[in-house]
């Protein structure tokens, strides 16, 4: 209680100080304004709007205080334009990030119980301070190089990723409820692109490549620690069956390097990309292996394996409907899959489970359109964006499943992965009151009867931004429907400078 009061008092003081400050403006450290310092401080509070069920942990009731995520980004940009040498332009960017999740200290009791049970894991998980991004840009003529910790997004998709798989995602604090870019984890990378300008009928002909040295960088998409709110529902194997989970992160060596290359261009009005990359999947493979040292005689292992993706994407403006059409297709080579009879059950016979691999073809077709709906808004258009995603599993087997529990209380029922999966998304947004009010609604639908619904409104009261957001998932326990019982309402208060 004292700790909560202390934190609340400190937070209030910080807010009061911020409110006495002037407009949301960066600070310059030099007269030429070449060194710019800016950033944001954000606090996000979430309250659950339904009771958890089944294998979702922690078990909280509707109205529980489930998240208080505090973030600060401090960014320094320095353009060395006045010190350029032989037309080589150099600038650099440093971003410090500080994160503290307060729910594990003063949230709902069920959440604090997770802290008590896994103190070391949660201690690592609930706060963080690091150099989030730090890179230098070097450019001369048609060549551009960026070296350092950075993020890179390819492809044409929103919400779900196909070619946009360069950086891992941190889904541990909200998953689908959070902006994709907020979840992207920067990696130490060297990236270069070269503009060939026009080559034959192709304009803006470019080649881009990146390399993430495996001996320097081993960051992958983390799995939310067991018992935390945004982890996929799983039985408590450790507590109930004496079977713990161990994560085998990639080793730091050259063979675990990630890389990618793509060609971009415009041909006949179509902006296209052809790409190939090697990355690590967002989800590790999982297997059960016998382990006599454990009470349950086995342990689960999460294993991260490299994944190759080849694909192409394109966009084109269609004048008759005044619409931008986007499309993307990607071939996922040897992706780790979960087939209980191979990953799990062999361990019951004293044999290591294996992680089978399958190829997938995933694609998206989408549209972006600005439309006037003057009955609702006379000054700004509505931006509408829709996508259809398809995923085809080559050499599909009947036992292919998602590694999460489907039917409580049976710990070994898993949602099936169909040979062909389909999802659709839709997003609409506009601006009111001279851009100060920005309502938006995002919807995702899995044809196997799962819905995701996210209305939100952002209000600009310089230097503050206030976001109110509701997240609801309902339907069958499949794909994102597995998270159907963690609906919540959230408020973000952000101070920008």
């Amino acid at each position, binding site marked *: 209680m004292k700790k909560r009061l202390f934190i609340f008092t400190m937070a209030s003081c910080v807010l009061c100080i911020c409110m006495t400050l002037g407009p949301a403006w960066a600070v310059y450290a030099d007269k030429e304004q070449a060194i710019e310092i800016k950033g944001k401080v954000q606090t996000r509070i979430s309250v659950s709007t339904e009771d958890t069920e089944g294998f979702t942990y922690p078990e909280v009731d509707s109205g529980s205080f489930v998240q208080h995520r505090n973030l600060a980004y401090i960014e320094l940009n320095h353009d060395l334009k006045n010190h350029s040498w032989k037309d080589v332009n150099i600038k650099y960017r440093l971003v410090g990030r500080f994160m503290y999740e307060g729910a594990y200290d003063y949230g709902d009791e069920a959440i604090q119980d997770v802290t008590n049970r896994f103190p070391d894991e949660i201690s690592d998980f609930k706060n963080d301070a690091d150099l989030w991004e730090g890179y230098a840009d070097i450019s001369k*003529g*048609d060549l551009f190089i960026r070296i350092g910790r950075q993020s890179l997004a390819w492809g044409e998709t929103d919400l779900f990723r196909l070619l*946009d798989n360069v950086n891992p995602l941190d889904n541990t604090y909200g998953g689908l409820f959070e902006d994709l870019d907020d979840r992207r984890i920067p990696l130490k990378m060297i990236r270069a692109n070269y503009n060939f*300008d026009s080559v034959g009928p192709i304009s803006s002909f470019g080649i*881009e490549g990146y390399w993430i040295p495996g001996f320097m960088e081993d960051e992958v998409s983390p799995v939310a620690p067991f018992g935390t709110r945004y982890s996929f529902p799983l039985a408590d194997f450790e507590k109930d069956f004496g079977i713990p989970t161990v994560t085998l992160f990639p080793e730091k060596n050259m063979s675990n390097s990630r890389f990618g290359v793509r060609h971009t261009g415009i041909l006949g009005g179509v902006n296209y990309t052809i790409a190939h990359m090697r990355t690590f999947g967002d989800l590790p493979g999982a297997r059960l292996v016998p382990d006599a040292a454990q009470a349950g005689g086995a342990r689960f292992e999460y294993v991260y394996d490299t994944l190759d993706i080849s694909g192409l994407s394109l966009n084109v*403006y269609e004048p008759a409907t005044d619409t931008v059409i986007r499309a993307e297709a990607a071939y996922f080579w040897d992706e780790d899959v979960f087939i209980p009879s191979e990953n799990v059950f062999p361990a019951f016979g004293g044999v290591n489970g294996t992680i089978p691999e399958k190829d997938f073809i995933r694609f998206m077709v989408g549209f972006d359109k600005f439309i006037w709906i003057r009955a609702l808004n006379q000054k700004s258009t509505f931006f509408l964006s829709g996508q259809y995603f398809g995923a085809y599993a080559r050499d599909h087997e009947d036992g292919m499943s998602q590694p999460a529990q489907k039917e409580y209380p049976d710990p070994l029922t898993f949602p099936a992965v169909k040979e062909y999966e389909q999802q659709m998304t839709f997003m609409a947004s506009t601006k009111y009151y001279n851009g100060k009010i920005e309502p938006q609604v995002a919807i995702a639908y899995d044809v196997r009867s799962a819905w995701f619904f996210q209305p939100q409104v952002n209000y600009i009261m310089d230097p503050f931004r206030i976001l109110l957001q509701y997240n609801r998932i309902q339907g069958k326990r499949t794909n994102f429907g597995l998270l159907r019982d963690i609906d919540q309402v959230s408020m973000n208060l952000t101070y920008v400078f």
Partner: protein
Amino acid sequence: MKWFKSVFLWISISLIFSPGKGVTAVVSPGDVIDKSNWQQVEGLIPRQTLEWVKKGDLVLHIGKLNYDPHTYEKAIVEKNFEANMNKYKLVDSDIVDAKTGQPAGFIEGIPFPEYFPEADINDPDAGEKVMINREYLQLSQGNLRFPFHFLWIDGNGFDREAKGVYYQSPLDGYAGGRDIPNQEKIQRYQLFLFQQPYDVSGTSQLTWRFKGPTRDNNFAYLPSIRRVRRLTPANRSDAILGSDFVYDDAWGYDGKVSDYNWKIIKKQDGLMAFLSENVEPLEKTGSPGEWGTTSGIKPVVFGYQDKAYTGAKWAPTNVVWVKRPVYVLEAQSKDPYYNLGSQEIWIDAGTLVGLIKVMNDRSGDYWKTALISQNAFESPDKSIRLMSMTTQQIIDDRTGHCTNVEDMSPRNQWVYYAKEDLNKYSLSGFTKFCK
């Protein structure tokens, strides 16, 4: 009888010189026109702008320029002025060679110098030719680079602002574009980059404007998705960041000239806003060939910045209003979904830079007005002389809200003939601006 004649003469003179229908307004340099004497400017500014004066929102300080602005604007296209006389014509809004009828290749200077400054207003294409000349006058200033501030001003004064940088590189009109390979027939590259506040920082938009009827290619980098997104080129009447400005409002009109129907209604005297009565200096920036405005440039003071000012918060309080020859044009977008109806544009005939644009909604009811001020600029050796836009404002008369674009000011240095790498306008080069 003598007294009767005197009275009759006095009454006649009074009738002749008092404002009214068909009577010329009288203003002189040094006059200050406010709500007590608005009649003096009736007919010299659009009716809606006159209402501001009547209400006390806007006070006009009448001035006299110490230079001829037409000669400054003409200076940048002087070289090919005579050579381009009657060299081109308009066919279906396309500029073609008058002799061959083929689409014009590279055009240096303005394509219709015979209409600058005197257009034949009986020519049904006169309006379009004047606007094309205006476009090419702006292109002739070469590569441009300047920071700007976007200011939201409401009834209480300053609300919020955003800061950005603007880049423009013409491949037509400007002599430096002649030898640049241009198989795509780009007329102009344009890049907006917002830098502040933090949540819009990095948002940028790249436009490839093509010669002829080909629609623009528009791309935007959005930091929230960290990638480049293709945009529709038809969304020109949508608000920028939710402000009163729409994409076509930049420079007074920044769309393709061929997207509108233009008609010159009349040519007459009108009042145009100037930054000052004097030529403002240019200075070298340090990069060879570049010339920039100075930090000593006269700042425009808006109503919210002057506590003593009793007019509108958005009103420019210290610009000079000068009587100039103006064209009054009627303009209407050809796009049936465009968010504006007809517009009346009063544009300085001698410079085609300063203007007042009165905009109606789709029902034909008055909605908002754009004010663009201008000024002459000159290098110390007088080798560079040009006219340029100095401020842009859109005033929404329904809400009393205004968006100012603070272009030239002590903190925003404009650079002309900027040394720019055209690579930044390619899709690969555009990624340099991405986080």
